[in-house]
């Protein structure tokens, strides 16, 4: 059993004419929190979908626990997915089921456990995220942060070997964010699994990550332990980590020089 | 909505649909005529069938006893050959029964009227009716009328 859970080699992915991922190699360790960070729209979520087999790459390969994801048959892929947990940005709870039923869903689908046993497990998972009392609520009655926590409880119901988090901190108030940060770290340590956090929230993510990759324009522009990145002198990494308005990622959207445009006057066609 | 209520509602819905189908079949269609799908086929030749169509009724004394099942043009004899299916319970038509193309009402649809003869043998499957009376074609009648008037 090697140290690396996920091996990505030579990954290329495009949508239409845009090259979203242009040659990425990544090694994600079996234990610990690995962060994938970068500006918005650089294909971080796409990476997660490629790992989970929901998208097929133009070139390159993804190996999860020794299996090439895109060469698996449907039944094998489904078997692999049962060992992966995924937390979507919106939680993706099933809206016509209660919180309890949402967390119980994977158990009811994939195991033959008795209702009594399922109930115990669901309540324990909900307890781990602090929402045992909300078991009978409907998803529409939950706040965004609570919905994400329920989705997290659901993601761990089959005791997966890894959890992928898609922008877990985006749009959260400081308290909810603090809760989620704490939960991600604790769950990872208690369950002793691999967590992949995709985010553009530098400070919170780096505070819990064991290793981080910085992605921009479809390529990896840096990777290392959080302390290494913070001390880095690469321009790209500096701009991202410090949140500078202008740098390798320019402030101005591509346009003709300002004087030319002003002089040409009315340029409505 | 509890599962039980939903299941009852769906059950009622399906039952209502089937009941509607049933009602339509029984009350407003000629289902009765179909219980005797195994009628016997006879044929007849006409000079002119007028507006007779497949599935037009065949009646005796005004009572429906069968329907037209086929209409063909016989190029050998230069006339129309009509096949019809008679319901099995009406099996006592003498072999010299006459078949005429009649009109129901003044402007109604055309049908075949059977006038029984006096022979002792009866029509069976495959029999042909010898005595036929073609449809009255309006133009011919008008033509005859004018012709007879012109002669006076």
């Amino acid at each position, binding site marked *: 059993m090697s140290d690396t859970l996920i091996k990505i080699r030579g990954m290329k992915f495009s949508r239409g004419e845009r090259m979203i991922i242009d040659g990425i190699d990544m090694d994600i360790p079996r234990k610990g929190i690995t962060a994938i960070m970068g500006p918005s729209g650089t294909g971080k979520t796409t990476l997660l979908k490629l790992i989970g087999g929901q998208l097929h790459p133009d070139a390159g390969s993804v190996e999860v626990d020794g299996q090439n994801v895109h060469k698996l048959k449907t039944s094998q892929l*489904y078997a692999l997915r049962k060992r992966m947990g995924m937390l979507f940005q919106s939680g993706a709870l099933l809206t016509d089921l209660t919180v309890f039923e949402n967390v119980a869903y994977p158990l009811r689908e994939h195991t033959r456990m008795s209702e009594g046993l399922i109930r115990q497990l669901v309540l324990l998972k909900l307890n781990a995220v602090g929402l045992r009392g909300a078991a009978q609520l409907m998803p529409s009655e939950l706040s965004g942060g609570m919905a994400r926590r329920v989705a997290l409880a659901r993601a761990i119901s089959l005791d997966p070997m890894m959890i992928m988090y898609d922008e877990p901190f985006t749009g959260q108030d400081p308290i909810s964010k603090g809760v989620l940060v704490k939960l991600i770290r604790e769950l990872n340590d208690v369950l002793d699994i691999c967590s992949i956090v995709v985010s553009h929230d530098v400070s919170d993510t780096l505070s819990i990550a064991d290793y981080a990759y910085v992605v921009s324009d479809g390529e990896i522009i840096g990777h290392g332990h959080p302390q290494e990145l913070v001390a880095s002198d690469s321009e790209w990494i500096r701009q991202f980590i410090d949140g500078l308005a202008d740098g390798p990622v320019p402030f101005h959207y591509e346009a003709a020089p300002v004087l030319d445009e002003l002089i040409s006057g009315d340029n409505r066609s | 909505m509890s599962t039980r209520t939903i299941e009852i509602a769906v059950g009622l*819905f399906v039952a209502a649909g089937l009941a509607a*189908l049933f009602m339509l079949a029984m009350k407003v269609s*000629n289902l009765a005529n179909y219980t005797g799908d195994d009628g016997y086929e006879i044929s007849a030749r006409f000079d002119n069938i007028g507006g007779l169509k497949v599935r037009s009724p065949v009646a005796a004394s005004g009572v429906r006893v069968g329907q037209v099942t086929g209409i063909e043009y016989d190029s050998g004899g230069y006339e129309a050959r009509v096949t019809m299916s008679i319901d099995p319970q009406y099996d006592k038509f003498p072999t010299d029964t006459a078949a005429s193309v009649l009109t129901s009402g003044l402007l109604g649809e055309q049908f075949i009227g059977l006038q029984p003869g006096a022979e002792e043998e009866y029509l069976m499957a495959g029999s042909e009716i010898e005595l036929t009376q073609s449809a009255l074609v309006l133009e011919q009648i008008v033509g005859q009328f004018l012709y007879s008037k012109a002669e006076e």
Partner: protein
Amino acid sequence: MMLLDKLQSLGHKSLSSVQRLGRGHVFLLHVLPAMQGMLFRPSLLIRQMYSVGVQTLLIIVVAGLFVGMVIALQAYNALVDFGAEDSVSVMVVLSLLRELGPVVTALLFAGRAGSALTAEIGLMKATEQLSGMEMMAVNPIERVIAPRFLAGFISMPLLAAIFSAVGVMGGYLVAIELLGLDAGAFWSQAVAKVDLYHDLGNGMIKSAVFGFVVVWIAVFEGYDCVPTSEGLGRATTSTVVHSSLAVLGLDFVLTALMFNE
């Protein structure tokens, strides 16, 4: 040159329409085999038959009643000049069984149930529920799409039958109570002129075909929509428009095939 641009955009639009048509067929090929999942989970189908069939009942019954009554009135007006008012029942029954039952039901179904299906599935796509199911190793086509598809296909002929039956009742009420026609003549005329296989049977075949097409369009538009609120709105409109046109177009083809005398 403007003309060239317009031609290019026309070509592009035609190509993407054709591509969409192809996607819709591939989609169907995925949905049909996925229906076996319902053998193990009949509750999925029952739940959808409630939401798609039972909840469309009210509008179908009310519409059927009014349509039947109107036909009786109009048929009377047309026939009374020929002294043929006894044939009112024949007109009511035949026009309902052959055309109005299947077609109007299909149009109402597309508007009420079809658009709801598109919205529901589209919303599930937009909130990543379909994606979430995939990641939980549950096939959303089997679990979400196929039950809705089958429910629509079964419900349509049932609804069309109810529409026609209620329409005939409505026509009967108008004919007997309002117009003073003879009740006996009403039913006997109908029995004489309406054929079980030719009229009722063909009408039911029509509504089954319509049901298949309307549900297919509704479900595909939802599944294929752009997962934004604007995309969802466009998808539901598209469902109603496309399925209505498809129904009317198919009606012509089927009528020409079936009622060729």
